[in-house]
Structures are given as structure tokens and as C-alpha cells.
């Protein structure tokens, strides 16, 4: 597969925005979908649709098998040990809530401590905040430096005998910081503390090996990995899934239901209550195949090249300030333009067909720390090219012109 021409595989790029070709630089928010994924969805609904796991007619059995195939693909994609360790949710946020809620129920008591970092997305903070509220637990924030790197030594100092879990992002959706989670996990495991890794931004952009990382939990979303909306993935070590209580209760997650007791289904069904996002999970297999056809190494190389090109070009613009300068950075570039508010940047760029995001990107803690109320963010996907960046740069340069600034 030729990575240079990959745009042609995404139908949306034949679309015009404000009469200009779409330059999509909002992939950290959600990625666009290749034709193979869109077609699979179409095909499944047109020719194969059935609910899974409940009926035994031909369509149902086929769908059940296809669903299972995606589970196996996901297992291989992140190198989990068994498919029972892969739980499908509706999004990464639900996956993290599942862990916070069930782990919290069982293991968090008044005064216990949870460590998160100043880089976290709200989805990896609010679920822990719920525990703080309900269980009178404490949350400690591992600090970051101005570069946007977590200060690992300070994180280490936060660990006490009351620390029950550490939740940390693998790749920041604001600064692009690639966090050395393996190091953090080793450190935590020495003190028997489990670690949840928020993999929303790592799954689409770097090679992930949960067995090598040895993380206890890893959560990500299908829609950021060239898949449909409506699917999230929780990887969890079997020992946890076996030990923790169920999360959502209902059909399919039970093995026996009586008036006075309920027995739960074995893994993975125990955590998959009700009708799942059947079509979405089945379709997600195509997203993984798409990534495999490219190869994560090629993807990383390509995105690195585009990111470096963008950074170089943007840094040359006088009034532009890039937020954060992490040691190890992926294709997420948050920036400011002097005297132009990020929302105005977004509107002006949109006139050029350039889709970026402006705001706090669900990271208010980070923005508060950096004393910013909002930033503009260009984030790179596998389909982006140097030409896209040239248009971005042109549009950025024009922002100050529109504002009558020299």
C-alpha cells in the first residue's frame, strides 16, 4: 500500500469545504474512515445483519463468528494474551469508567489515593473524580514540565502505601507527548500498584504491545483508529476481569438468573451487557486490516515525517507559538497565534478548508497549568501530506492579515 496515495482511499477527501479541498487536521478528535470500512458497514447491514450470540439461525451465527473475529484481531493488534481480555464498550470513556467503577467498588476505601497526571483527558480524570466523591478517596496529579513531559521523579514521589491505582495517558492529545508508560508501570508494579493506560491517542499512532508494557488496563476508541463511532475497547488482564464485579447488568452478561440470585457469564461476556454495537465491532475488523495493510512502522514513519515538516514550517512563523516541546512527540500540534484567539483561528482556517480544533481539547487541567484558556490544535492522521501542511501554514499566516495585524 502506497502511503502517499492513501487519501484516495477515503471518500470524504473528494469533498469540498467552502469550495476548497478538505484538509483534515482533526484526527486526534476522530479520524476519517477508509472506503473498506464504510463498505463493510454497508455490506453487513445489507446482506448479513443479525444480532449476535442469541439466536442460532444462519445470520445470527455468522454475525456471532464475525464479532469474535474482530475480538481476535484486536487481541493481535495490541498483542494481548487472550481474546477474553478484550472487552467491547461504546467508547474509551466507558472503558475507563468500567475500570474506575468496578475497581473502585472493590479496592478503593476512604483515604486511598489515585494518581493521575496533569496531561490527562477529562475522560481519564472524571471517572476517578467520581471515586473521590463517592469513596472519599484522594486524587494526586503527577506534574508536567513546560515541555509537556510528565516529571517521572515527581510521580514517583507521589506514590505512598495508600496509592491504589495509577491512570496515565500513553500519548497526550494536546502536546503529542509520548509518555514512557512502560517505565511508570515497572515502577508501579514494584509496589504492586496496577496501572491503567489511556491509549486513545497511542492506538492510532504508535505500535502498542500490552504484553510488553505489562499494563493492567488499556483503553481506546475505534473511531480514532479509522473505525466507526460507537465502539470502544478495554483491554484488561484476565486476573482483573475475573476478580472485579460486573459493570453494566442485563441480557447476555448472565449465565443464570433466578429471583434470588444472578450468576454472571464467563469472560468476555460478563462485561458486555445488552445488544452490543454489533455492526460497528464487526466493521472495526476492517479498520485493523487497513492499518495492517499499511504497517504500523510505515504509518509511524510517515506521520513523523509530516509532523516534523509541520513543526519546522510553523516555527518559522513569527507570531506562532507551539505548546509543549516533549522529548518524544507524535503528530499532535497545539499552537497559538499572537493576538488571535484560537476560535477565530479555527474559523479562518475553516475558510481555507482546513479543519482543526480550538478549545481546551478536554484537557482543562493542562490548560490551567499552562495558564491558557484555549489553544488551536492541528493533529495528523495517516492520510495527511506535506501539501496539507503547506495549506495549513498558508492559512495560519493569513490569520494575522485578517486581523489587520502585521
Amino acid at each position, binding site marked *: 500500500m502506497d502511503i502517499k496515495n492513501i487519501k484516495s482511499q477515503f471518500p470524504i477527501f473528494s469533498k469540498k469545504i*467552502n469550495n476548497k479541498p478538505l484538509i483534515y487536521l482533526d484526527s486526534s478528535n476522530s479520524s476519517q474512515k477508509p472506503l473498506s470500512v464504510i463498505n463493510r458497514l454497508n455490506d453487513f447491514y445489507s446482506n448479513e445483519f443479525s444480532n449476535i450470540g442469541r439466536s442460532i439461525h444462519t445470520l445470527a451465527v455468522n454475525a456471532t463468528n464475525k464479532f469474535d473475529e474482530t475480538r481476535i484481531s484486536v487481541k493481535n493488534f495490541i498483542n494481548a494474551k487472550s481474546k477474553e481480555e478484550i472487552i467491547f464498550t461504546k467508547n474509551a470513556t466507558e472503558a475507563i469508567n468500567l475500570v474506575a467503577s468496578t475497581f473502585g467498588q472493590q479496592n478503593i476505601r476512604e483515604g486511598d489515593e489515585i494518581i493521575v497526571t496533569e496531561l490527562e483527558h477529562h475522560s481519564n480524570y472524571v471517572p476517578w473524580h467520581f471515586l473521590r466523591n463517592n469513596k472519599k478517596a484522594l486524587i494526586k496529579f503527577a506534574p508536567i514540565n513546560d515541555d509537556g513531559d510528565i516529571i517521572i521523579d515527581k510521580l514517583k514521589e507521589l506514590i505512598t502505601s495508600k496509592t491504589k491505582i495509577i491512570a496515565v495517558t500513553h500519548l497526550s492529545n494536546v502536546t503529542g507527548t509520548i509518555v514512557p508508560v512502560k517505565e511508570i508501570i515497572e515502577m508501579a508494579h514494584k509496589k504492586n500498584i496496577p496501572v491503567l493506560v489511556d491509549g486513545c491517542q497511542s492506538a492510532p499512532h504508535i505500535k502498542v504491545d500490552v504484553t510488553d508494557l505489562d499494563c493492567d488496563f488499556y483503553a481506546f476508541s475505534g473511531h480514532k483508529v479509522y473505525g466507526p463511532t460507537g465502539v470502544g475497547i478495554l483491554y484488561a488482564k484476565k486476573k482483573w476481569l475475573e476478580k472485579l464485579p460486573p459493570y453494566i447488568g442485563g441480557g447476555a452478561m448472565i449465565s443464570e438468573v433466578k429471583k434470588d440470585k444472578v450468576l454472571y457469564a464467563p469472560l468476555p461476556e460478563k462485561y458486555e451487557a445488552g445488544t452490543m454495537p454489533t455492526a460497528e465491532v464487526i466493521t472495526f475488523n476492517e479498520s485493523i486490516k487497513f492499518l495492517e495493510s499499511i504497517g504500523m512502522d510505515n504509518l509511524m514513519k510517515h506521520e513523523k515525517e509530516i509532523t516534523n515538516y509541520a513543526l519546522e514550517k510553523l516555527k518559522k512563523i513569527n507570531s506562532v507559538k507551539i505548546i509543549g516541546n516533549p522529548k518524544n512527540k507524535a503528530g499532535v500540534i497545539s499552537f497559538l497565534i499572537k*493576538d*488571535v*484567539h*484560537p*476560535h*477565530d483561528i479555527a*474559523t*479562518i482556517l*475553516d*475558510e481555507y478548508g482546513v479543519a482543526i480544533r*480550538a*478549545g*481546551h481539547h478536554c484537557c482543562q487541567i493542562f490548560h490551567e497549568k499552562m495558564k491558557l*484558556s*484555549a489553544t488551536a490544535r492541528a493533529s495528523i492522521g495517516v492520510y495527511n501530506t506535506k501539501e496539507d501542511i503547506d495549506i495549513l501554514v498558508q492559512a495560519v499566516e493569513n490569520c494575522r492579515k*485578517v*486581523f*489587520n495585524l502585521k
Partner: protein
Amino acid sequence: MDIKELYQDIILEHGKSPRNKGKCKGYNHEAKGYNPLCGDKVHVYLKLNDIKQVENLTFEGEGCAISLASASIMTELVKGKSVIEAKKIMNDFLSMIKNDTVIKSNNLDEDQKTKIMSLSGVKQFPMRVKCATLSWHTLNSAMEGKKDEVNSEAVD
């Protein structure tokens, strides 16, 4: 459509140096507004006198050029008006932004009309309408003495 229709000079100027910022002395009404879409925030402080006239009107807030300019122009236009007149101006403004109608209020002078009309370009940018209207909805809320935070999602 030209982006300069949105970013007219009056707007840029008000956006850069908004008038009536801060907490005015002796305010007796206030309200907070919030746009969850982009995170814009505004806090309106209003001093109404005994005869229901806007004696003073200021705001605090952070946001884009559109929202700051709109709030700034609003304070200029509404100060000195009665609550009834203020509401007329507001309704005029909102319908201009949304339905492309002209300003009908007969209690604005030409200069004021020019100012308010400078915001009319927003109607071409549906995603920015909320930036322009937030401060007005919040003023309305302050005048009506509502407790809830104004949420631009809910009112537009």
C-alpha cells in the same frame, strides 16, 4: 463569502479593546453565560435603577474576537436604556443574526446601528452565532433575575 465580512474592522477593534470590562460598582443583577461548544464564558454585571433603567452594564469574560466584540458593543448600546428598550434591541439583534432581518429599533442612533450591524456577518457563519449571542442571552438572564447559568446550547 469573504472572511472579512465576519471580521469587520469595528469587530476587530472592539475584540481587541472591549469597552466596559470588569465588575461595575453597585451592580444589582448579574448572570453567567457559557458556551460549551467552544468554552467561551461571560459574566454580566448590571445595575438597574428604580425606574428600571440600565444605569450601568459591564462584563467579564474570555473568548474570541466575536464574543468579546459582541459583549462590548452590547454594553455600549444598552447602557442608559430602559429594560423594555434593552429587550427590543436584543430581539432586534438576535433576529438580525439569525434571520437576516434589519434593525428596527428606533432608539439607536446611526453610530449605534452601524456598530450592531457590524456583527451581521456572523449569520453566514452558523458555528459562530453562539459566540455573538451568548452575552445577550446572559444580559437577558440578568435582567430577568434567573439563577441558572445561561447555556448557549439551550437557548439557541
